[in-house]
């Protein structure tokens, strides 16, 4: 047990908020060698399951700190779902998935498990100091750092000076309030009650939706299985219902019982957690304010439909961690952090656009959308062409179009693959350790993927890997061979997935950022390495000379 007097006076990074985003960011920073102090107002991990659907991209990010294994082992993976109108199935969707994939498109798991796994990863890596019952009370931002006051459970107040403060303190962010900042956007009136119940079931793990079901006429009901025999049930409450009354057990439990009866889930059950929700489309216009950065719900609130809340928060952490590490360690200028804001604000605006579309269907904001939904659901029973309107538009990685880090591409050089600003595609391949995946190479440092059948990598490219830089500033040069044997610096694309998905030819080189996004790509990198030097110079203050 740490005593209050042992609080540090100064730390490189303070993270306000020890939820899933804050703890994941702490672990990611630790992985890059940056020590941080996490201040969490609550006494422990969250109550209630909260965010439960973890996307493939989020699993990759958690994989960078080794938190993916317990997540996958405990969680329930799924690839699709079904929607019903009254008694008729009107949609059966499947997300992109293949037998050899590294992660399923989605895993269901209670948020408190994510927090535990991220915390355990941070502890394993070291350099992360997590303090529970430590509530941030005041923030004084200056040019050279930030003073953070916080109160502990014993009522004592403390102050810590930090180079960087990252606000991961949720939708009601104290840091945001202290800086006088406000979220901008709109929210929807339609409300959903969220109920977790414990019940044994053998049903397949899918996203299930019922519109106007016989069990609850006029309502919409969503169901997801979670580990530990837990069901997540969301149902729409009528506009005239009082939200306080709506969450009272005497109003919730009969509706749940009626629906369980309808779908034939007859095992005994008990409620675990009840909450209520309305869709919000809110964001800060910028996620960087000097030495204070915002991530997760402190930066943006997006509708629950499409599961973009926690997943976008983890993407914030994945984007910010390597940049903050480079700046903190003197490898990059502070301007790199502006790209965090540019890229993630763009992502939020896209998430909000998708989330708004989903919300217009799931919680129609006015008569026009309500009527159109009624029409679409009826028509979907006979016309497959309209069924995509019912699709829940699940979270997917977002392109950082127009990012200042994206490197220009020679016109006509590529007909396919992934251009700068897109997530680097996945591929199953052979590694020195056996069958593996290309995305497993990402998350630590820059990676240059050099597609070549020649075993000897040209010296003009070798120079980039031999700079002696460490941590996120390092560059790992990996040859992607079409055949042959794998070694420490060569992976073998026996299935041809990588060469096809990267539109590769002999000599093609992709520069991948530490967060797994494509930064640039070139056809003739060995003969003309200058653009790679320029690309690294966009980020790093020191680049190798040609």
């Amino acid at each position, binding site marked *: 047990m740490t005593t209050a007097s042992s609080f540090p006076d100064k730390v490189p990074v303070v993270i306000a908020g020890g939820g899933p985003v804050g703890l994941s960011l702490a672990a990611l920073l630790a992985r890059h060698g940056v020590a941080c102090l996490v201040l969490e107002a609550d006494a422990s991990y969250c109550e209630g399951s909260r965010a439960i659907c973890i996307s493939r991209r989020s699993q990759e990010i958690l994989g960078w700190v080794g938190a993916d294994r317990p997540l996958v082992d405990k969680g329930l993976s799924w690839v699709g779902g079904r929607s019903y109108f*009254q008694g008729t199935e009107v949609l059966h969707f499947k997300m992109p998935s293949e037998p050899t994939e590294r992660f399923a498109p989605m895993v269901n798991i209670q948020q408190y498990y994510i927090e535990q796994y991220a915390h355990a990863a941070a502890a394993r890596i070291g350099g992360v100091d997590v303090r529970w019952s430590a509530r941030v009370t005041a923030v004084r931002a200056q040019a050279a750092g930030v003073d953070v006051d916080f109160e502990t459970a014993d009522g004592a107040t403390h102050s810590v000076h930090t180079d960087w403060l990252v606000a991961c303190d949720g939708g009601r962010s104290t840091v945001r309030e202290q800086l006088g900042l406000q979220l901008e956007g709109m929210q929807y009136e339609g409300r959903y009650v969220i109920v977790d119940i414990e019940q044994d079931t053998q049903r397949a793990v899918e996203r299930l939706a019922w519109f106007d079901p016989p069990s609850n006429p006029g309502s919409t009901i969503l169901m997801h299985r979670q580990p530990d025999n837990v069901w997540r049930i969301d149902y729409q409450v009528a506009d005239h219902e009082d939200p306080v009354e709506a969450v009272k057990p005497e109003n919730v439990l009969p509706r749940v019982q009626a629906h369980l009866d309808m779908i034939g889930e007859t095992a005994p059950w008990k409620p675990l957690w009840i909450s209520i929700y309305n869709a919000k489309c809110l964001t800060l216009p910028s996620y960087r304010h000097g030495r204070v950065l915002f991530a997760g719900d402190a930066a943006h609130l997006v509708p629950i439909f499409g599961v973009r809340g926690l997943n976008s928060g983890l993407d914030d952490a994945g984007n910010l961690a390597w940049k903050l590490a480079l700046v903190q360690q003197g490898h990059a200028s502070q301007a790199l952090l502006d790209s965090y804001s540019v890229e993630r604000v763009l992502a939020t605006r896209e998430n909000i656009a998708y989330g708004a*579309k989903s919300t*217009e269907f799931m919680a*129609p904001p*006015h*008569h*026009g*959308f309500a*009527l*159109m939904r009624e029409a*679409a659901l*009826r*028509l979907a*029973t*006979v016309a497959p*062409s*309209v069924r*995509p*309107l019912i699709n829940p538009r699940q979270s997917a990685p977002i392109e950082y179009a127009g990012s200042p880090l994206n490197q220009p591409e020679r016109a006509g050089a590529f007909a396919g693959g992934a251009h700068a600003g897109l997530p680097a595609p996945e591929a199953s391949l052979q590694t020195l350790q056996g069958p593996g995946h290309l995305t497993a190479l990402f998350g630590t440092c820059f990676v240059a993927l050099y597609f070549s059948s020649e075993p000897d990598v040209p010296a003009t490219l070798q120079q980039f890997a031999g700079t002696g830089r460490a941590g996120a500033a390092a560059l790992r040069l990996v040859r992607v061979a079409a055949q042959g044997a794998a070694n420490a610096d060569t992976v073998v694309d026996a299935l041809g997935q990588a060469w096809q998905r990267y539109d590769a030819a002999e000599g093609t080189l992709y520069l991948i950022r530490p967060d797994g996004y494509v930064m640039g790509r070139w056809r003739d990198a060995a003969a003309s390495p200058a653009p790679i030097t320029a690309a690294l110079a966009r980020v790093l203050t020191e680049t190798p000379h040609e």
Partner: protein
Amino acid sequence: MSEAQLELTYTALAECIGRVGENKTSLLLATLALDLLSQQADAKTALAHILQAERLANT
């Protein structure tokens, strides 16, 4: 029509209904339906659409 175009059309009509208000929704939709039905190849096809819509409306 692509999925994206269908979504755009769906949203446009929903917002249009919202703009004209509930009192004029029936007139709006009847006008739209007549316009589209008049573009069908023949009356048989148009009548099939009308009967399908009637059946679905009664579910």
